[in-house]
């Protein structure tokens, strides 16, 4: 499998994603500079990493969305290619219109970096088939503008189509208001597009993919992709 990690000016989780793909799950991976117009390789999955592209000035992801490479990413997604946007990558995907809704300032107005629990609401996606249905995982968040918002119709559609992939929950898996630390609509931490090939999530699975860091539950986002690409089966069916 071959992954691409897009590098925008100000990306800072690009090296982390690269490291996990290469060293932890042992797949091939290239950095792709934002000024490229086209992919020079055939990619099985494209990752938009976290960070502060263009300093997150104006709005998170707003300027990066117009980087030359984004046209290629949008085409790639329209053709069904797998796209994973993490944190700032999620923000860029919403700005680019590949995912509905938007991400706004956390309700307490502060940047928050800590472990949170996520309930895997949909494990039948290319990014989650290695998780059990309803599994609760611990994953770090690190963002100041990660409150997911969308209009009521969009929310209905997201629910109907099972597009809500991760919700902030308690350790026991309850998506309670208390664990909704950033004020997201309906505790939403990650969503997928209708076609099921573009995932955006605020938490950082690449930060918890190795035992040496005390937690490897995020690794399975990456192993899921590989498994899905190989035609693997959904767990727990």
């Amino acid at each position, binding site marked *: 499998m071959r992954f691409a990690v897009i590098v925008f000016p100000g990306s800072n989780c690009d090296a982390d994603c690269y490291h996990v793909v290469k060293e932890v799950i042992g797949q091939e991976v290239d950095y792709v500079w934002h000024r490229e117009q086209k992919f020079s390789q055939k990619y099985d999955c494209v990752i938009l990493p976290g960070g502060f592209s263009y300093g997150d000035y104006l709005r998170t992801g*707003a300027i990066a969305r117009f980087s030359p490479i984004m046209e290629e990413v949008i085409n790639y997604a329209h053709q069904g290619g797998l796209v994973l946007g993490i944190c700032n990558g999620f923000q860029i995907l919403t*700005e680019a219109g590949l995912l509905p809704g*938007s991400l*706004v*300032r956390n*309700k307490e107005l502060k940047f928050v970096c800590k472990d949170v629990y996520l309930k895997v609401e949909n494990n039948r996606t290319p990014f989650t088939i290695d998780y059990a249905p309803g599994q609760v995982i611990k994953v770090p968040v690190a963002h100041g503008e990660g409150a997911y*918002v969308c*209009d009521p119709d969009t929310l209905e559609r997201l629910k109907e189509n099972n597009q809500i992939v991760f919700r902030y929950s308690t350790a026991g898996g309850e998506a309670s208001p208390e664990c909704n630390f950033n004020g997201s609509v309906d505790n939403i931490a990650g969503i997928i597009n209708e076609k099921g090939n573009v995932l955006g999530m605020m938490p950082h699975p690449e930060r918890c993919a190795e035992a040496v860091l005390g937690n490897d539950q995020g690794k399975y986002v990456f192993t899921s992709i590989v498994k899905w690409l190989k035609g693997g089966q959904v767990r727990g069916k």
Partner: protein
Amino acid sequence: MYKAKVFVTLKPSILDPQGNAVKKGLLSLGFNNVEDVRVGKYLEVTLEAADKEQAFKDIDEMCKKLLANPVIEDYSFELE
């Protein structure tokens, strides 16, 4: 040379925690007469344009494309 003053505000349906925080701050400073505060962005864009009409069109397009996100924000502007 034209100068546009662009106002970008959160849509009324979107919560404005920053506005609330500022309101609280004002109240705690003793400004008990504050009813509501909304916080938005104010941009000054200086641009070259053939005429005012062209400038108007350009600014409007800049707002649509980049300066405001229609999912969450409204915009308006004045041109000088």
